[in-house]
């Protein structure tokens, strides 16, 4: 499924994007290539920053957990990368085509009684390819069916989504993500409120994505799981606390620093940021 997925879009996007970037990337030599780079990113709601001067890069094919206390700006950062929120200052730069980014929000605000079948929902993953009008090819449909099977829902293709459990519905959303063939996949608390078996199965799906060369960034709160399943972690508390191999990033010292930063957010009076 992952054939030719990462290579071409990246090169294409780089050759297109490079002349316009203020700081061109070392596209020729660097291996692996950065799929996504945060340049001093600040995102504020009503002037109060929720993501504050964060810089760094996600390598192609990396699997990174986004960790931090409640209100640390994890969801906000993911939304901004997905293009659903404007960046207040700084820039988010992509080494891939903007259309090759897939995003799964924490709460998918859908009407579960909506008269759609599992396969209808998964077929929507082809949107970038077929748009509003074009017909789905037989191959597209086969991709959907295969995706449904690989999230463990084989045989339920024609089940109305209203009859699914919460866990099964999350599997459907993962199948839709899979169909999107995205080079960069953003997951916001993907294992929240689902049973352990489903969480474990979906984690395997995420691992497969990484093996296929896709880049995955997932906001998570279960530190044990991050240490166990994720090679890299980004610890933030509005500010960047640490970013690197998961075990080092989640050191007691770093976590204490994040907690300390979080304690200062309740102060309503704030001066204008001088940075």
């Amino acid at each position: 499924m992952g054939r030719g997925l990462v290579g071409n879009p990246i090169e294409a996007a780089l050759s297109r994007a490079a002349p316009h970037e203020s700081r061109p990337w070392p596209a020729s030599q660097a291996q692996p290539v950065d799929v996504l780079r945060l340049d001093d990113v600040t995102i504020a709601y009503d002037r109060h920053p929720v993501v504050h001067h964060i810089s760094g890069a996600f390598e192609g094919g990396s699997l990174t957990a986004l960790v931090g206390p409640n209100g640390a700006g994890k969801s906000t950062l993911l939304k901004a990368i997905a293009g659903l929120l404007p960046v207040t200052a700084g820039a988010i730069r992509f080494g891939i085509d903007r259309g090759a980014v897939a995003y799964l929000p924490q709460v998918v605000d859908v009407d579960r009684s909506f008269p759609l079948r599992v396969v209808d929902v998964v077929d929507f993953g082809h949107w970038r390819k077929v748009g509003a009008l074009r017909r789905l090819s037989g191959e597209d449909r086969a991709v959907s069916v295969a995706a449904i099977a690989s999230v463990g829902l084989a045989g339920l293709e024609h089940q109305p989504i209203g009859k699914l459990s919460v866990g099964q519905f999350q599997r459907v959303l993962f199948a839709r993500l899979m169909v999107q063939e995205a080079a960069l996949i953003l997951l916001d608390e993907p294992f929240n409120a689902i049973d352990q078996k489903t969480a474990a199965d979906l984690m395997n799906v995420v691992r497969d994505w990484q093996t296929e060369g896709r880049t995955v960034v997932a906001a998570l709160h279960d530190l044990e799981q991050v240490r166990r399943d994720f090679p890299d972690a980004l610890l933030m508390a509005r500010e960047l606390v640490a970013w690197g191999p998961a075990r080092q990033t989640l050191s007691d010292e770093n976590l204490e620093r994040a907690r300390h930063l979080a304690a200062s957010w309740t102060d309503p009076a704030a001066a204008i940021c001088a940075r």
Partner: protein
Amino acid sequence: MQLLFDFLFQPFIEFGFMRRALVACLALSISAGPIGVFLVLRRMALMGDAMSHAILPGAAIGFLVAGLSLWAMSLGGLIVALIVALAAGVMSRITPLKEDAALAGFFLISLALGVLLVSVKGSSVDLLHILFGTLLAVSNSALVLIAGASTITVLVLALIYRTLILECFDPGFLRAVGGRGGLAHATFLALVVLNMVAAMQALGTLMAIGLMMLPATSARLWTISIGRMIGVAVLVAVLSSVAGLIFSYYANLPSGPAVILSAGLLYLLSLAVGSNGGLLRRYIRRPHLEH
């Protein structure tokens, strides 16, 4: 057999006005069915009601300018209702108001303005015509308007079908993959208004909503596929059109309300025995399966 044939077809064979009423209703059924289904799916079932009132001042302005001219009144109604719908849509996106609240505000202003305008010149009879129509006196131009609106509706719906479904189901996803959900929604609202204006002379704006909503809500009680819902909705609308016209002919009653009441009967029937969540299903205990 001959008796039944006569009973069902004689009114239409004998009288031109019955045939015209039938054609008008059938054309409206074909477009009102799918429009209603999407209103139900968008949880905007009552929105049509508000829109029908928004048409009034436009129709009244048309009436004041050009007298009882179908085209002037339709155009006026179309323009004002579109302004109300779009203003509500835009306000719901840029202010904290939800769409229904924004719409309620605008349509009430519009309705009050309409009643005021009608009272300036015209009578309450004219107002009743706009709200309830005169199905047995459908003019040629009204037929053309209805047929045209119906055709445009079906074609445009086909174009925005996928976008509209995804915009109803998961607008966040549609936005993330770069779909034009807002545009599809605005286009859809325009179609709602177009159908209501087209139905104005035949059924009246209030009754036109009946032909949109009753078949669509009935359809929801029979099937869980959007395609089939649209089919069932059109079928219910067609059936109630024919039944209503025949009933009104023999009982010598107003035909618009008769058509809508027929649709209402089918709705109550669907509520009772609908295969997808009808009341009967609730009270019949069937033994549970092994897994």
